[in-house]
């Protein structure tokens, strides 16, 4: 029983981190419908920024978003404006294939540049919080993961408010729903696409800072988290911020609990099996909106 609770609790905590990464992906995937294969690589860039700020200047990873968030925002903006937009301008369909391939190419470029400059070494940020833990009722709570969970809750709430209460947020959703009509209504869809992509990238700056104290940094680290993030986005409902948050927690708990009774790889099978079943019953995801 104790193990079950511990497994569920630990799963809940790491689910918070998964959710944080999924939120970034959801801003892009869920709103402007670009399947961003480079999302994991952007996370990797964020983690390297956190690592180097710590290794060279002794700056704590939790302060690194001051640098990484604007940096990734700018990177995302430029990628969208200079690479993706010209591509999208040529295609009339809403979910163009070439954008997907372009983001895949971007991922390869970023990963290999990282390999070139930083080599394949595994870098670890060593800060006290990395090994810190809290005890509650005989259960162990990993402090850095708890920080991740709380950060995710805050970010999800802020994003929800942004997308429902602000003009810019609503404009992004409008462009995601129907780009042509949005343009007819006077929304500068080109700028909106840029901002959405930039925002999704910038969120990786926060996720990277959260991961740095307890996970290793490596040029291939993006691929470890990104597939889960895609599953979570769809599970929670594309475009729904609370959905991504909830999806992350659910995925974490399922993994944590099932992993206690099966080998870790089998836990993935169970998780994805449940995911597929859900899609049969509710294709728009848990909190997604039904599309006509």
């Amino acid at each position, binding site marked *: 029983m104790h*193990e079950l609770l511990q497994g569920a609790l*630990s799963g809940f905590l790491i689910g918070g981190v998964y959710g944080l990464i999924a939120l970034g992906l959801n801003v892009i995937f869920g709103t402007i419908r670009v399947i961003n294969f480079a999302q994991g690589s952007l996370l990797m860039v964020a983690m390297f920024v956190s690592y180097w700020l710590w290794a060279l200047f002794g700056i704590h990873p939790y302060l690194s978003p001051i640098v990484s968030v604007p940096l990734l925002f700018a990177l995302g903006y430029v990628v969208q404006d200079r690479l993706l937009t010209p591509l999208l301008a040529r295609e009339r369909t809403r979910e163009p294939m070439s954008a997907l391939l372009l983001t895949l190419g971007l991922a390869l470029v970023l990963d290999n540049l990282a390999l070139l400059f930083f080599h394949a070494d595994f870098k*670890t940020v060593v800060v006290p919080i990395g090994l810190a833990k809290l005890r509650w009722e005989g259960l162990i709570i990993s402090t850095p993961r708890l920080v991740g969970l709380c950060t995710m809750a805050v970010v999800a709430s802020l994003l929800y408010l942004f997308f429902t209460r602000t003009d810019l947020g609503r404009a992004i959703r409008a462009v995601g729903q129907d780009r042509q009509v949005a343009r007819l209504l006077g929304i500068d869809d080109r700028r909106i696409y840029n901002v959405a992509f930039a925002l999704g990238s910038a969120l990786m700056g926060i996720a990277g800072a959260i991961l740095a104290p307890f996970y290793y940094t490596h040029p291939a680290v993006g*691929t*470890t988290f990104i597939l889960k993030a895609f599953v979570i986005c769809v599970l929670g409902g594309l475009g729904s911020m609370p959905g991504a948050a909830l999806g992350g927690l659910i995925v974490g708990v399922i993994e944590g609990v099932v992993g206690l009774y099966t080998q870790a790889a089998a*836990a993935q099978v169970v998780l994805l099996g449940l995911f597929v079943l859900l899609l049969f019953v509710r294709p728009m995801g848990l909190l997604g909106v039904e599309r006509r």
Partner: protein
Amino acid sequence: MAERRRIYGCGAILGLALGIAGAAPPARAADDIRIGMVSPMSGPTAKFGQSEKNAVDLAVEEINAAGGIKALGGAKLVVSYGDSRGDGDTGATETERLITKEKVIAVIGAFQSGVSMPASAVAERYHVPWLNFGTADGLATRGFKYFFRPHANDAVKAKALTDAIAYFSGKTGTKLTTAAIMAENTDWGKSVSVHQQSGLETAGTKVALLENYPFASPDLTSMIVKAKATKPDLVVIDSYLGDALLIARTMSEQDLRPVVFAAGGGGSVQPDFEKGAGPLAEGVLSAVAWDAGIGYSVPWIAEENAKHVKRFGVSFTEDSASYYQNAWIIADALERVKGAPTAEALRDALVATKITDPNRHAMLIPYKQIAFDAAGENPDAAAFVVQWQQGKLVLLFPTTLADPAAKVVWPYPAP
């Protein structure tokens, strides 16, 4: 008139040229013996490939400086390089290129067992000897005739680890009742964990958990919680660096503190492990195919390693030491080749290899003997066990090679 002078002129030049050619020493190219090496010179494991190249270059230099292959009139060795990029297909095509275009008569390779597998099959097809580095069991069970593995495979490394654990638990009077083995689910992890399990159970330790987890997982907490529930005295991991770090940290977080924390090799002996794990690395025992500490009891090895450090800034590693050894084994076989040095003749000489002198350079990794059985394995291959102590790796086992002043850190201190 002018035409006749031109003809005489050409004739004179031709005669002069022929005379010079005739008087010149015989072309050196015909005397050189070309061998090949395949390793990951680029890609994520490029660091290993580069160190392997350094080791082979060093060996070949030494062989040539000592007079080359004396039985073949002092023929010099020349190396051709193939970059596998860490990928099986690329390794195979590079091997083919080395054999067909560069005309090498032997190939040393390939570091990753997953590359050695297809690449050695190419060498087998062309009847060219393949001197292997790569520990997976499956490499030597294919009935190949041109495959040679002088170094310790997974079974030998697993046995060294379990023997060392049995030895030290006897010496410290500790009984290790239960063990948990956590290995990554690649070919290496799966094969080495099975060997460890049988070694431990023979020694009377019950393996309560053997789990193969997905390589590069984002989170392994559930597995650690499961392992902790078995109350293991011994935890063994078979992981590459990233997972080894994650496991060590998660164990600390979940208060899993075994009496002994051991590793089958892989990531736990790399400097980045100690840098990342810090105090958690202290006391971790690992099986390795070579360690610089061997130089303590074999002076020429210490000198050779110092030479390597002076030239390349670092010690030999288990893989580069093996590449070095393989080059010297080829040289030894070439001395015994019957007739012209073809790949076939070399293969026959390799089959008859029997090196026992510990001062020969082929014994950089010291074994009782270097010889090959029908499968191409060396029955006397041995592995060694090291332990992290105060940020350094200390050789502890076999005790005959270790510094007698070295003491085991036992139990695992886990801060």
